[in-house]
């Protein structure tokens, strides 16, 4: 399941909802992304997450479907917040559940790696030197590139 929302989410409740009554699940992996207070040497006052409504939902759903096709997951969840967030606030939640932990770990990393390079969200950081759009990170591209895709199955055909 995927959700894009301005409201915060409850990590424990989401893990419980996803795993409750499903006793084939042996391992759940959750990733929570948080707003940090510094970018390099400069303190961040806040961050605004913008997205492309319609395409962002579509890409998250496709990334999730890809993970479900690659790993034997019992369930999965992606929640991404949009709007203005302050340091320490939660931005994103990815949960994967599987019979065995290895599949859950790999699928969770895959989901956040691909989300970070393919889902149309952008961060505007506010610092004492003004607001600026965050630049894409080369190491995020490298992380996503680990998950080699068979030809014709890449959800982002252009890259």
């Amino acid at each position, binding site marked *: 399941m995927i959700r894009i929302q301005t409201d915060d989410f409850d990590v424990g409740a989401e893990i419980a909802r996803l795993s409750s009554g499903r006793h084939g699940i042996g391992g759940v992996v959750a990733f929570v992304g948080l707003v940090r207070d510094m970018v390099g040497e400069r303190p961040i006052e806040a961050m605004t997450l913008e997205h*492309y409504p319609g395409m962002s939902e579509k890409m998250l759903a496709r990334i999730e479907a890809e993970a479900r096709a690659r790993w034997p997951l019992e369930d999965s969840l992606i929640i991404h917040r949009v709007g203005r967030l302050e340091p320490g606030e939660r931005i994103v939640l990815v949960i994967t559940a599987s019979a065995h932990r290895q599949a859950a770990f790999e699928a969770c990393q895959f989901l956040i790696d691909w*989300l970070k390079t393919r889902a*149309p969200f952008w961060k*505007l950081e506010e610092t004492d030197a003004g607001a600026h759009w965050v630049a894409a990170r080369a190491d995020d591209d490298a992380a996503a590139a680990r998950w080699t895709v068979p030809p014709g199955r890449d959800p982002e055909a*252009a890259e």
Partner: protein
Amino acid sequence: MKLLYFAWLKTMTGVAEEEVSPPPEVTTVATLLDWLKARGPGFAEALADPAAVRIAINQEYARPGDPVRPDDEVALFPPVTGG
């Protein structure tokens, strides 16, 4: 044709969303970008580095050679930075 701009492409062009009717020679992503660059300094600057701009046609990532049609929704945005 509906155009959408996100992040600094929106800031630099000053446009979030617009309806345009490009001339008949605009048939691909690449020719659309060339036409847009000629619309003014904000557009020229925003689109100066094609490698820094991602294009989606009807919410699917597209390449420079992909065709664009009058009823398409074309979005222009920088590499994504969510998550």
